[in-house]
């Protein structure tokens, strides 16, 4: 084991991928139990897992997959039908596999008591072996006609109208059209090379009109051992055969003269519309055969993960390295800021040109690095179908999970963090939202509940929404509970709109579950969920119509670390306002400011917007400089449809900065989301304008 540690990482990565493939395809299979091609995919993943597990010395894993494979094999050969019970056992064993892989990833030895699951799998096999024995004759009967048919199709060749014309013309010009079927030795290592040699030989004596499978497939070795080539040549049939046979590793060559008149013998006797049929059905069969040849082949090569043509040109890079790259780049951004500042002070043309160029290049670099860290949310979403399945079984509910926008990309750091809170929200929707089937029917809804998980981009944000058509949230209950738990007092409550009231559910110590179930309501409530999203610079809102369903909407920033800010000065302090929150900046005369309910407001493009005096909120000292000024500098910020004007002393300008956290010791500083290091080495705080808008 020790010497294999370097392979361990690869093993874990790949196993997780295969497990995911297993899960995905099993879910598909459950929806379409008759689609045997899916079983092939599942079988391949299981097979690879078994191989890898055995190589790495994880006996239990190999043992379990071996049995799983046996069951899958039976299904694949249609000796076992896909029942709900079979699926349950298969899912159970995949769960076991997951546990083992998780254990291994966590430094364990991956051992696990798999006896129970193995016995269940064996029971499945035995039961079906009896059945299989009984239906063996039937199966054989089904099998037998298939085989000769396949052999026949291998010799068959069909020509479209154009090819027939070519053949006919060359025949008229004195050439002979030949159809040559060539079978390579099964031991042949370099099939493509043999194909090439055969083509070469034939081209010396004639022209190749057609090959089946097509030349591309032959070159890619996408065929088993035999293929058909049609040539026109002036040489005799026997000579052609001898020439081909000179190429080694060929077991059989048969040459036939193509009857150029014959291909449509029936066409002339029947209606012309039927003429197409034999030509069409034959290639269809060919395709089938090709398909099976292909899948057989990739099965043999199941170490390679996908079919050759789909291989992406990617490399695996440890995420730590990307993090280091990102950190280094952040340093660079800070120095870039410093350089820009120096060059503007020195006012030297060559220097400023060079700095400008460098800034542009590092801007491009920044985009690439950030993009490199982007991953589709599918990484998180893909485990939910399984979860929903088992959860709804457990709760006796009928739930359909719909996923859209899984290709939406987010920074890797964010992806890593949002899994657990999303799990929590989905569990919440199913546990508390979706009702039991009979309750749903009584309420006039379809028995099957729907949970729609969607992700989409909007500006510099990504939204993830979880919508269910369940019971919705009982506002009265939320109010009662919040009052009971002292989350809110009646006075504040009166001023709240529905959304704010629902928002109370995210306060700590809140749970509306009537009974404590195993699924949610274990105390770690929605407050933890909200906290996680907020630490990531996002937020969560909920809306609900009682009786009809609820919608949880999570807003997340595209990326965490480098943001565009407007730097502002208040007294001698500098603050950054994220550009994403800014509507615009403005300068207003002090006499344009009115008072309404002891709140300073301005009339801004026909809207009355409140002013927020940052110097008061932040208790900024030393503000003599700003006192004599008769204008206010404003940064107008928005939060959803609400806007406010932040009053500052002066606007410095727009900067790309690296957002850094204040650290755990300073978590929860009001209206400050982090800090950044400016070009001169000073620390500037970044505002969280959302906290300033009420």
């Amino acid at each position, binding site marked *: 084991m020790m010497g294999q540690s370097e392979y361990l990482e690869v093993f874990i990565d790949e196993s997780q991928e295969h497990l995911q493939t297993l899960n995905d395809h099993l879910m598909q299979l459950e929806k379409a139990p008759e689609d045997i091609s899916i079983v092939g995919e599942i079988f391949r993943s299981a097979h690879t897992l078994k191989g890898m597990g055995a190589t790495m010395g994880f006996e239990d894993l190999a043992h379990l997959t071996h049995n799983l494979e046996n069951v899958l094999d039976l299904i694949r050969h249609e000796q076992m039908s896909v029942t709900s019970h079979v699926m349950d056992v298969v899912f159970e064993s995949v769960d076991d596999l997951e546990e083992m892989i998780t254990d291994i990833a966590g430094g364990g030895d991956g051992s696990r008591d798999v006896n129970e699951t193995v016995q269940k799998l064996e029971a499945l096999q035995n039961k079906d072996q009896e059945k299989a024995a009984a239906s063996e004759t039937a199966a054989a009967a089904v099998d037998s006609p298939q085989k000769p048919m396949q052999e026949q199709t291998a010799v068959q060749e069909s020509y479209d109208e154009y090819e027939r014309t070519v053949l006919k013309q060359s025949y008229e010009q004195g050439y002979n059209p030949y159809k040559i079927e060539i079978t390579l030795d099964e031991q042949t290592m370099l099939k493509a090379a043999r194909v090439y040699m055969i083509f070469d030989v034939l081209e010396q004596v004639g022209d190749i009109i057609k090959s089946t499978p097509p030349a591309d497939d032959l070159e890619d070795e996408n065929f088993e051992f035999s293929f058909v080539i049609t040539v026109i040549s002036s040489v005799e049939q026997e000579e052609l055969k001898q020439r081909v046979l000179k190429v080694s590793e060929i077991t059989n060559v048969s040459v036939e003269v193509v009857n150029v008149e014959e291909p449509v013998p029936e066409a002339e006797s029947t209606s012309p519309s039927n003429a197409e049929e034999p030509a069409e059905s034959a290639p269809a069969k060919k395709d089938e055969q090709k398909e099976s040849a292909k899948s057989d082949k990739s099965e043999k090569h199941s170490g390679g993960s996908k079919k050759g043509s789909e291989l992406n040109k990617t490399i695996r890079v440890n995420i730590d390295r990307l993090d280091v790259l990102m950190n280094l780049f952040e340093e660079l951004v800070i120095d870039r800021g410093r350089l820009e500042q120096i060059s503007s002070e020195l006012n030297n043309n060559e220097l400023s040109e060079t700095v400008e160029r460098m800034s542009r290049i590092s801007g491009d670099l920044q985009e690439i690095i950030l993009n490199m860290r982007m991953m589709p949310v599918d990484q998180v979403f893909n485990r939910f179908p399984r979860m929903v399945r088992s959860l709804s079984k457990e709760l006796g509910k009928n739930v359909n999970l719909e996923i859209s926008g899984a290709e939406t990309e987010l920074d890797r750091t964010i992806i890593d963090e949002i899994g657990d809170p999303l799990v929590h929200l989905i569990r919440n929707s199913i546990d508390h939202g979706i009702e039991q089937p009979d309750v749903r029917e009584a309420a006039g809804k379809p028995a099957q509940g729907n949970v729609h998980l969607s992700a989409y981009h909007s500006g510099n944000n990504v939204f993830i929404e979880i919508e269910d058509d369940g019971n919705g949230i009982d506002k009265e209950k939320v109010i009662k509970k919040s009052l009971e738990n002292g989350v809110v007092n009646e006075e504040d409550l009166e001023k709240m709109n529905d959304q704010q009231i629902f928002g109370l559910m995210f306060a700590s110590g809140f749970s509306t579950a009537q009974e404590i179930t195993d699924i949610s309501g274990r105390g770690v409530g929605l407050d933890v969920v909200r906290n996680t999203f907020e630490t990531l610079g996002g937020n969560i809102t909920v809306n609900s119509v009682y009786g009809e369903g609820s919608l949880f909407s999570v807003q997340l920033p595209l990326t965490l670390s480098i943001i565009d800010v407007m730097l502002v000065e208040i007294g001698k302090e500098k603050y950054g306002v994220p550009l994403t929150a800014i509507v615009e900046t403005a300068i207003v005369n002090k006499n344009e400011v009115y008072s309404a309910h002891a709140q300073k407001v301005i009339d801004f493009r026909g809207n009355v917007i409140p002013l927020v005096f940052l110097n008061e909120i932040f208790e900024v000292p030393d503000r003599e400089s700003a006192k004599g000024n008769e204008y206010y500098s404003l940064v107008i910020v928005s939060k959803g449809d609400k806007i406010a004007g932040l009053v500052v002393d002066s606007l410095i300008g727009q900067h790309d900065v690296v957002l850094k956290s204040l650290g755990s010791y300073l978590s929860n500083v009001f209206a400050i989301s982090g800090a950044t*290091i400016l070009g001169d080495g000073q620390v500037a705080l970044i505002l969280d304008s959302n906290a300033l808008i009420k």
Partner: protein
Amino acid sequence: MAVETADGYVKVIVFQLKDEEYAIEVNDVQSIEKMQTVTRIPGVEPYIIGVMNLRGIITPVLDLRKRFGLESRDYDEATRILVLKRDNSDIGFIVDGANDVMDIAASNIEPTPEVVGGVAEEYLRGVVKLEDRLFTLLHIDKILNKPEEKQRSGM
């Protein structure tokens, strides 16, 4: 308890605060910095002076005099920032001056007497007597605990 060297000694950094000498274990200290620009953070406890840029890392800075409720004084040439290693982020303590690094025998550490120079007893781990010097060993975790923490998060 203290991390002791093989022969029962504890390595400490001795620093000045008002008229007294205090000690922190060397293992807890990341570096000692001269006073530098600190950016104020609004709305936090008064003893949290702000954050500084410590070689690219945003580091919170605490004034230990304020933390202990001693009267403040202006920072000068002797003022130092002791940067302490914490699990997830470093924290700087402003002290009047860093005096010494020394090994003290574990046997020289005595339990805290009832009252020591006005610093509340809970922050102290023991008192060291060494010839003519006397200094107090501090309890880092206690100093970092915000007493108001619970009330604040309950808001």
